[in-house]
């Protein structure tokens, strides 16, 4: 560890640097925020089990490992490029810098749609789990959409007031979640089906069997949110070293946790039975597996944490979606009032309100349609969200390659070949491969017939969003050149009025 970072001027320490440093984040805090938003308990208890039930594909645990590796490779170029551009928390900023404003705004359309799918889908999981918990514990029978509606109301208010969980609350909840998940896993491993611990679900050969695209897409949904490390780059101590570190560590921790805990479930159920058990028990699978071996209190605690985990994810993705609309409002790509903040509370006011209205509309439709919320809302919508983010990451990886091939001056000249070419290229190829198998196996992912309308409709929506975004950018180029210039800049678009062309596109220098 370097003892001090004093500049070569001797004993002089900048007063403002040390003051600003005090408020900065550590690697630990960044990891905490990222993992808490990823909501491990939701992914393990909800994502993996619903994945088995819907896709009928065995290899979900090994898919988590595979995706962690792919995203790790992608992150090499991603975290490197994040230091050189503004608005670096948003994938479309990378696409804009690497491939241009028209694909940039197209990917912004994909992003808005993807985070919406993700957030709204989580209401289905929350509603179902809370409904079950209330009925089991206190005999209160509410419809799932009433339970989801309660979360909706709370989140609508918290979003407008800009209230988020504090680091301490998130840390405690996350710590408890992880501990319970590990305890459950150890109990499951101690009681394997048929008396032997099996490794079928983590066998890498699963990745080359039918349905691997569905398994990988299920896994991707569990990782969405890891990209937010880049948002904190200006606020993290020694960001150049710490942001990549936080990104890799987050991926490593959640990847291993997801894989371990889902594998443990498959061991306890038996690899031949896990699909059937998940189909029968849904989000209760994890609890059904450990209930013969643990006292009641652990199950109650587990359910409570499942609910808080879902809620934390709902709130995190609500804010992500609201901030996307806010940033696009600041760019004046959307109506400028989307870029207004609440006066009394520092919130992306209209982004937040819009998100709430959309969610309410979807909940209303699902409540009326009387469809299973876990399969058709929670699983379908969150994996579709994950699929959208997969598209974004694939395009972003190509944009990163293009950016580093085009920009080789200054600090970028010193970049190793691994960082600026090899890793981004491998990442792009791998992500593209995952994307293609996912598209091919979208019917398996949704658990529908190969010619079902949904398998084309859901992925097709992203194509539509990309076309609308790109077309809008093309229109802005000729109709509103000033707005066109601001695409991809986020809140920094304001500076374009006072700066010459593209001066604001890149940060002034390494900081």
């Amino acid at each position: 560890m370097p003892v001090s970072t004093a500049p070569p001027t001797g004993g002089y320490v900048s007063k403002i640097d040390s003051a600003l440093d005090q408020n900065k984040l550590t690697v630990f805090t960044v990891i905490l925020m990222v993992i808490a938003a990823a909501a491990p308990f939701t992914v393990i208890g909800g994502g993996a089990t619903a994945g088995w039930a819907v896709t009928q594909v065995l290899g979900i645990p090994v898919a988590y490992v595979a995706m962690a590796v792919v995203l790790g490779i992608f992150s090499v170029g991603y975290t490197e490029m994040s230091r050189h551009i503004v608005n670096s928390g948003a994938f479309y900023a990378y696409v804009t810098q690497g491939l241009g404003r028209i694909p940039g705004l197209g990917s912004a359309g994909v992003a808005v749609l993807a985070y919406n799918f993700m957030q709204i889908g989580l209401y289905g999981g929350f509603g179902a789990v809370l409904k079950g918990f209330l009925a089991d514990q206190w005999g209160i029978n509410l419809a799932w959409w009433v339970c989801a509606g309660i979360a909706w109301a709370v989140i609508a208010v918290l979003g407008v007031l800009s209230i988020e969980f504090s680091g301490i609350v998130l840390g405690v909840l996350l710590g408890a979640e992880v501990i319970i998940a590990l305890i459950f896993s150890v109990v499951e491993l101690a009681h394997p089906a048929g008396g032997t611990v099996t490794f079928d679900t983590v066998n890498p050969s699963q990745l080359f069997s039918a349905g691997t695209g569905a398994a990988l897409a299920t896994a991707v949904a569990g990782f969405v949110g890891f990209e937010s490390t880049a948002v904190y780059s200006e606020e993290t101590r020694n960001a150049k070293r710490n942001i990549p570190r936080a990104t890799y560590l987050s991926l490593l921790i959640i990847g291993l946790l997801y894989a371990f805990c889902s594998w443990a479930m498959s061991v306890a159920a038996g690899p031949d039975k896990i699909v059937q058990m998940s189909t029968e028990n849904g989000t209760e699978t994890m609890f059904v597996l450990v209930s013969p071996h643990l006292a009641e209190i652990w199950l109650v605690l587990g359910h409570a944490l499942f609910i808080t985990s879902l809620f934390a994810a709902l709130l995190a993705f609500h804010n992500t979606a609201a901030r996307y609309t806010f940033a696009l409002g600041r760019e004046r790509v959307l109506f400028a009032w989307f870029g207004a903040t609440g006066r009394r509370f520092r919130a992306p006011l209209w982004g937040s309100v819009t998100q709430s209205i959309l969610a309410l509309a979807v909940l209303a439709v699902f409540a009326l349609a009387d469809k299973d919320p876990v399969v058709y809302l929670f699983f379908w919508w969150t994996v579709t969200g994950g699929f959208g983010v997969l598209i974004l990451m694939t395009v972003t990886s190509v944009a990163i390659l293009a950016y580093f091939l085009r920009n080789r001056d200054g600090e970028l000249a010193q970049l190793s070949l691994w960082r600026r070419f090899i890793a981004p290229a491998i990442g792009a190829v791998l992500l593209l491969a995952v994307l293609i198998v996912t598209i091919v196996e979208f019917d398996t992912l949704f658990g529908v017939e190969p010619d079902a309308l949904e398998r084309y409709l859901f992925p097709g929506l992203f194509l539509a969003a990309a076309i609308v975004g790109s077309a809008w950018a093309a229109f802005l180029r000729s109709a509103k050149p000033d707005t066109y210039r601001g695409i991809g800049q986020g809140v920094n678009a304001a500076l374009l009025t006072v700066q010459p062309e593209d001066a604001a596109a890149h940060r002034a220098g390494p900081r």
Partner: protein
Amino acid sequence: MLSDRRRREPLADDFFRLCHDDRSGTLRLSDDATRVGLASALIAELGWAGILTVEDGLLLVRAGATPGDSVAHAVLDDIRGERTPRDVRTWLTYLSMESYERVARRLVAGNHVIPQEGRRLLRRYTFYLPTDTNDFVWPRVRLGTALAQRRPIDQIDVHLLGVADATGLLPSILDGGGQAAHAYFEHLMQQSHADVQTLVQETRVVIGNKVMNGR
């Protein structure tokens, strides 16, 4: 400026007035936006005093002049204390840590406000009660009517309006003026000095970033 019926108050003091209710003294703006806005106003004061200038996004001190009051002096000392010039954004972030207390201190010393202790959810906090409601409401009235009637507005007040816009306070000033008043404001901003525009837009970006980061 000639049409002002009162003595010119420091820009940050007027921004402080805009942020608070003229009767109860309660803050009308979010804590963050207020602090960043006040930091921006403090920089603006030194700018209009001819002491600071903006070059390539960096805040530079011009030799010679000294500010009139202790708060402006303290801000200038901070800026002079750095060996290398820093960008506007860094200064806005740094100065926002103490800007509220500094400006409040100046208003207390001038007997424009009286510090009071309030309680909210078992937590004590200090708020500042205006001594004279007319004095407090003056910036809003002055700017609001000038915009609504499209009267000439001096450069310092245009700067104040810019900071108000960047922090989200402008709608409360425009009150009743409608689209025409807003268009007039945009026209004034476009005509303003390049340094003013840079400071205002950087203020907007700092607040926007706080919204994006959620912290």
